C-alpha cells in the first residue's frame, strides 16, 4: 500500500507562543493512500501541528514536505492548491452562505472566479459551474444534505455542519485530506457511514490525516496513529502498537487535567 | 408653502392683490421645459385680479398677492456657519426696521424670506439653490466664496439672481453683472488697502502671508501679497493654517524665522483667535506686525480675545457706507446687539433687491439683471432706505442707493467699488486710521 516516499512529511516542527512551546521537534510521515490519526490529550499540540502543516501558523523551525517538496514557505492557499486540504476543529462553515454555495466554493481552477469571465459569463466558467453542480449533488446525496441544499449553512445542526465541511473539502479533489475532529457532534449512525466513506476514499488512493478525540474510533479507522503529549510526539505506529504505549496512557490518564 | 415668516409679515387682509404667474403652469408641463432653459420659465409675473379669494390654478407657489418669496442661501453650519446668522439679522433689519421693506412694501407686498443652509459645502449649496428655485423665489441673498463657483452655472441656467453679501473671492472679479452680484467688495480691493497700509503707512518692505487654508482666505491673502509686491515690497513666505489644527505655534515660529516685518493673516475668528493667542505667547509682537482679515473686525472679537491683547492690531474693512450709522441703530434696536461681519452688506443686498422689484414694476426674476447696476450707480437721488427709494421711484425719479456696508457702486461685473478703511484696535474698539478712496484702490 505504501510507496517508498511519504506523501506528507513533517520534520522537526517547532512553534512557540510567547514563552510557551506549543510544538517541539515534531516529526512524522504520512504515506500515500493511508489514514493517519493524530491523538493526544487536550493541549498536546495536535491542533497547532495541524495549523503548522497546513500553513495557518508560521513555523518557528522545521519543514513540511509534500511529495518531497518543502512547502513550509507557502501560504495556506498555495498548500491547498497543491492538494493538501483541511477542515476545521470548530466548524467553519460559511453561515451566511447556502449549503450549495459552500460546496461550490470548493471547486478548483474556476474561470468564473475571474472578474472578466464572471462579468461576461464566459462559456468555460459556465461549464465548470455545471461540473461542480453535478459533483456537489453527488456528494450532498452521499452526505444526506441534498434536501438542505438551499438552506443557509448557519441553520444546519452541528453534525450537519461537520458533514458540509467535509463535503466542501472533498469538492477540491484533494490528495491529502486533513480532518480536524470530523466526527464531533455527528450522530452515531451517520458516523458509521462516514467512516466507511473515508475508507472507500482511502481505497481509491486518497490520503487522510485526522485529528480526533475519540481514541476508539481512531484505532479502528487508522492505518497509523501518532500520539502526542506536551507538544511532542510520544509514539507512532500501527494502532495496535500505539494502543499499548504506556507513556500515552500515562498522558491521557496520568492525573493531570 | 413653507417659508420663514417674519414679524413684519402680517398679511394684508382682503385688499391683498393677487398675482398669477402664468409661467408657473408652463413650468409644470414637464421636466423637460424646466431644466437648463435659460429663459427661466417662471420669471414673468402678470398681475391678475383683485379678488382675494381665488386660488390660482397654476399649481405653483405664487398663488397669492401675499409675500414675495426671496431666498437667503447662506452658511448656517459647517466651516462658515457663523456667518449665516449675521446675514440673517442683516436681512431682517432691512425688512422689519422702520422704513424697511415690509413696512413700506414692495409694490404693496411684503417680502418673505426662504432660508436655505449651504452647510459651507458646494453640494449642499446646490441643493439649497434648487430648493429655493423650486419654492419660486425671485432672487436671493447669496452664499460665501467657498460655494459660489458651483452656483454660477445654475444661476445662469435658471435666471435666478444671487446677490451675495459675503463672497469676496477674486475668482468672481471677472464674473457676474447679470445674475451674479455682490454687495461686498472683492478681496482684491480690500487686499490693496491692506498692502498699501503696510507699505505706505507702516513702512514695511518684507511681508509674509498666513491664511486659513480655505478658498476665501487664500484668495484675500494672495491678492494682498501680489499688490504688496507691485508696490515694491517683498513677500517672503506663505503659511497656510489648517483650520483643524490645535496650535499654530510652529507656524508662528516659522513666520518669526522668516524675517518678515509684517504678516498678513487672513482667517475667520476661530483660526484668528488661536493664531493670535500663539502669536502673543511666542512674543512674536517683537518680530512682526499683524494685519488681520475682514472677518474678525468686530468688537465681539476684541472682547473675546481681550482688549489689551488686540491693542494696536490693524485690519481693514470696507469704509462703512453713508447709511451705516442708521443701520447700526436699527440693528441694535431689533436684535439687541451690534451687527456681525457681513450684516451690513446683507442689509444692502436685501434693500437693493426690493428696490429692483419696485423699479421693475412687477415681481419678476428679470428685475435684478435689469436694474441692480443703475440702482447702485445712479445718477439720481441718493437714498439709503427702502422707503425713501420707493417714494422716489413712485415719483418717477432716478435713484442712487448708497448703502450701509458700502456705497454700492457696481462695476460691470457686479462688484461694488468703494472706499476702504484701515482700522486699528484701540481701547477695545476698532478705530479708523486711514481711508482709501475707490480711486486709490482701483487697478
Amino acid at each position, binding site marked *: 500500500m505504501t510507496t517508498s516516499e511519504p506523501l506528507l512529511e513533517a520534520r522537526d516542527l517547532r512553534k512557540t*507562543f510567547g514563552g510557551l512551546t506549543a510544538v517541539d521537534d515534531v516529526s512524522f510521515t504520512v504515506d500515500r493512500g493511508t489514514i493517519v490519526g493524530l491523538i493526544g490529550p487536550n493541549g498536546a499540540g495536535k491542533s497547532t501541528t495541524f495549523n503548522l502543516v497546513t500553513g*495557518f*501558523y*508560521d513555523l518557528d523551525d522545521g519543514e513540511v514536505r509534500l511529495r518531497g517538496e518543502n512547502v513550509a514557505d507557502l501560504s495556506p492557499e498555495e498548500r491547498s492548491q497543491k492538494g493538501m486540504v483541511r477542515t476545521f476543529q470548530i466548524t467553519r462553515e460559511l453561515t451566511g452562505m447556502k449549503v450549495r454555495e459552500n460546496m461550490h466554493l470548493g471547486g478548483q481552477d474556476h474561470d468564473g472566479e475571474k472578474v472578466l469571465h464572471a462579468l461576461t459569463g464566459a462559456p468555460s466558467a459556465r461549464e465548470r459551474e455545471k461540473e461542480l453542480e453535478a459533483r456537489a449533488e453527488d456528494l450532498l446525496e452521499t452526505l444526506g444534505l441534498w434536501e438542505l441544499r438551499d438552506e443557509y449553512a448557519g441553520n444546519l445542526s452541528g453534525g450537519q455542519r461537520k458533514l458540509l465541511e467535509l463535503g466542501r473539502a472533498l469538492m477540491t479533489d484533494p490528495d491529502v485530506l486533513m480532518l480536524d475532529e470530523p466526527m464531533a457532534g455527528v450522530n452515531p449512525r451517520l458516523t458509521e457511514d462516514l467512516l466507511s466513506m473515508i475508507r472507500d476514499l482511502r481505497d481509491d488512493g486518497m490520503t487522510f490525516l485526522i485529528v480526533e478525540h475519540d481514541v476508539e474510533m481512531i484505532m479502528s479507522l487508522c492505518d497509523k496513529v501518532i500520539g502526542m503529549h506536551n507538544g511532542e510526539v510520544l509514539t507512532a505506529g500501527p494502532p495496535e502498537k500505539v494502543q499499548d504505549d504506556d507513556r500515552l496512557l500515562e498522558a491521557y490518564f496520568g492525573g493531570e487535567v | 408653502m413653507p417659508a420663514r415668516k417674519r414679524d413684519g409679515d402680517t398679511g394684508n387682509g382682503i385688499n391683498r392683490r393677487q398675482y398669477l404667474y402664468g409661467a408657473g403652469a408652463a413650468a409644470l408641463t414637464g421636466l423637460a421645459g424646466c431644466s437648463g432653459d435659460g429663459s427661466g420659465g417662471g420669471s414673468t409675473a402678470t398681475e391678475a385680479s383683485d379678488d382675494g379669494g381665488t386660488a390660482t390654478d397654476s399649481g405653483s407657489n405664487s398663488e397669492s398677492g401675499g409675500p414675495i418669496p426671496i431666498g437667503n442661501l447662506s452658511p448656517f*453650519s459647517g466651516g462658515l*456657519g*457663523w456667518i449665516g446668522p449675521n446675514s440673517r439679522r442683516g436681512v431682517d433689519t432691512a425688512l422689519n426696521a422702520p422704513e424697511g421693506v415690509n413696512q413700506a412694501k414692495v409694490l404693496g407686498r411684503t417680502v418673505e424670506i426662504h432660508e436655505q443652509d449651504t452647510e459651507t459645502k458646494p453640494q449642499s449649496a446646490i441643493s439649497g439653490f434648487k430648493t429655493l428655485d423650486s419654492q419660486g423665489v425671485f432672487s436671493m441673498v447669496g452664499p460665501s466664496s467657498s460655494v459660489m463657483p458651483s452656483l454660477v452655472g445654475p444661476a445662469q441656467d435658471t435666471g435666478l439672481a444671487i446677490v451675495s453679501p459675503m463672497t469676496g473671492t477674486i475668482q468672481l472679479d471677472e464674473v457676474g453683472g447679470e445674475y451674479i452680484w455682490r454687495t461686498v467688495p472683492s478681496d482684491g480691493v480690500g487686499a490693496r488697502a491692506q498692502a498699501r497700509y503696510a507699505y505706505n503707512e507702516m513702512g514695511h518692505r518684507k511681508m509674509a502671508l498666513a491664511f486659513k*487654508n480655505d478658498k476665501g482666505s487664500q484668495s484675500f491673502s494672495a491678492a494682498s501679497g501680489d499688490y504688496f509686491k507691485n508696490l515694491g515690497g517683498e513677500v517672503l513666505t506663505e*503659511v*497656510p493654517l*489648517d483650520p*483643524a*489644527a*490645535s*496650535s499654530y*505655534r*510652529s*507656524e508662528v*515660529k*516659522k513666520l518669526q*524665522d522668516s524675517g518678515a516685518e509684517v504678516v498678513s493673516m487672513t482667517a475667520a*475668528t*476661530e483660526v484668528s*483667535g*488661536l493664531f*493670535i*493667542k500663539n502669536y*502673543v*505667547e*511666542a*512674543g512674536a*509682537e517683537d518680530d512682526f506686525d499683524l494685519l488681520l482679515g475682514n472677518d474678525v473686525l468686530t468688537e465681539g472679537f476684541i472682547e*473675546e*480675545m*481681550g482688549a489689551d*491683547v488686540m491693542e494696536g492690531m490693524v485690519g481693514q474693512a470696507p469704509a462703512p457706507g453713508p447709511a451705516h450709522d442708521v443701520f447700526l441703530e436699527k440693528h441694535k434696536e431689533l436684535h439687541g446687539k451690534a451687527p456681525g461681519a457681513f450684516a451690513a452688506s446683507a442689509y444692502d443686498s436685501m434693500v437693493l433687491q426690493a428696490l429692483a422689484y419696485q423699479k421693475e414694476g412687477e415681481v419678476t426674476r428679470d428685475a435684478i439683471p435689469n436694474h441692480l447696476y443703475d440702482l447702485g450707480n445712479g445718477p439720481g437721488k441718493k437714498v439709503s432706505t427702502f422707503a425713501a427709494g420707493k417714494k422716489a421711484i413712485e415719483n418717477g425719479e432716478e435713484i442712487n442707493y448708497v448703502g450701509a456696508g458700502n456705497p454700492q457702486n457696481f462695476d460691470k461685473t457686479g462688484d461694488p467699488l468703494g472706499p476702504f478703511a484701515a482700522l486699528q484696535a484701540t481701547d477695545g474698539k476698532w478705530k479708523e486710521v486711514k481711508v482709501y478712496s475707490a480711486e486709490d484702490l482701483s487697478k
Partner: protein
Amino acid sequence: MAGLDPQFIWFGIVSGSLIALGALGLTLIFGILDFINIAYGEYMALGAFVAFSLNVEFGLPLFVGAIVGALVVGPVAIALDKAVFQHFRNRSAIVLLVVSIGLSFVLRNVIRIVWGSGSKRFDVPIEEAPTYFGVRILADQVGIVVLSLCVLGGTYLLLRRTDVGIAMRAASDDTDLARLRGIDTERLVLYVWLIGGVIAGTAGVMLGLDAQLRPTMGFTALIPIFAAVILGGIGDPVGAVVGGYAIGILQEASVVVIPSEYKPLIGLILLVVGLLTRPDGLFGEATR
C-alpha cells in the same frame, strides 16, 4: 533648514502630554471592550465644554470647572454604555465601531446645540510666555504637563496596586481568560468607562486650555491619539503613553523637515505604519 530648536521639543512635550492622556483613556477602554470608540473624541470635548460653562458662564475659577468637567465625563460614559454600547456587547467590533460613529455624531451635534458651533476660550489671559534657557514656557503648559504626569502616574499605580486595576489588566490581556478566573467583567466594564471617561474629560479640558474649545476639538485630536494607542500596543497603558509622547514630539519637530501643513501626516503615517508592522493585526489573533 534650521536645526532642531529646543522650543519644538517643549511644544512636543506639551502636545505629547495631551496625546498621551487621551491615548491612556482610550487604550484602557479598548483593552477591555475590544472596539474602537470613535465617540471618545466627543467625550473629551464634553469635559472641556462643561468646564467652560462653569468657568465662563458661572464665573467659577478654572480649576473648579476643570475638576468638575473631567469628573462629569466618567458617569456620562457609563450612562452612554448603558444606553447604547451595552446592547451591542455580543456584536462584532465592526458593528460597535459603526455604532460609535453614530454616537459621535449625536454627541457632537448636541454640543453644538448647547454651546454653539463657534470657538470658545476659558477665562484665562493671553500673555507672552516667559523665556527659560531660550525656551518659551507658559505656566498653562507647565500645568498641562504636570497634571498629565500626575494622571498618568496615578493610573499606573491604580493598575498595579489595586484589585480593580489588576483585574483590569488581566481582562485586558484576555477577556475570556479573565472571565474563567471569576472576574466580574461587567463590573470591570463600568470601572473602565468611569476611569477612561474621567481621563478623557481631563484630556479635553487640557486641550481646551492649550488651544481653544470647539465642538470638533476631540474628533480632530483622535488620529494622533489612535496612532499612540496602536504604536504602544493596543490595551497597553504604558505603551500608549510612550507612544503619545513620541508622536507629540515627532509631530512638532517635524516642521523642521517638512512643511507645517503636512504636520498631521506624522500622526497618520505612524498610525498606518504601526498597524502594518503588527503582523496579523489585532493582537496577532490569527496565531492565538
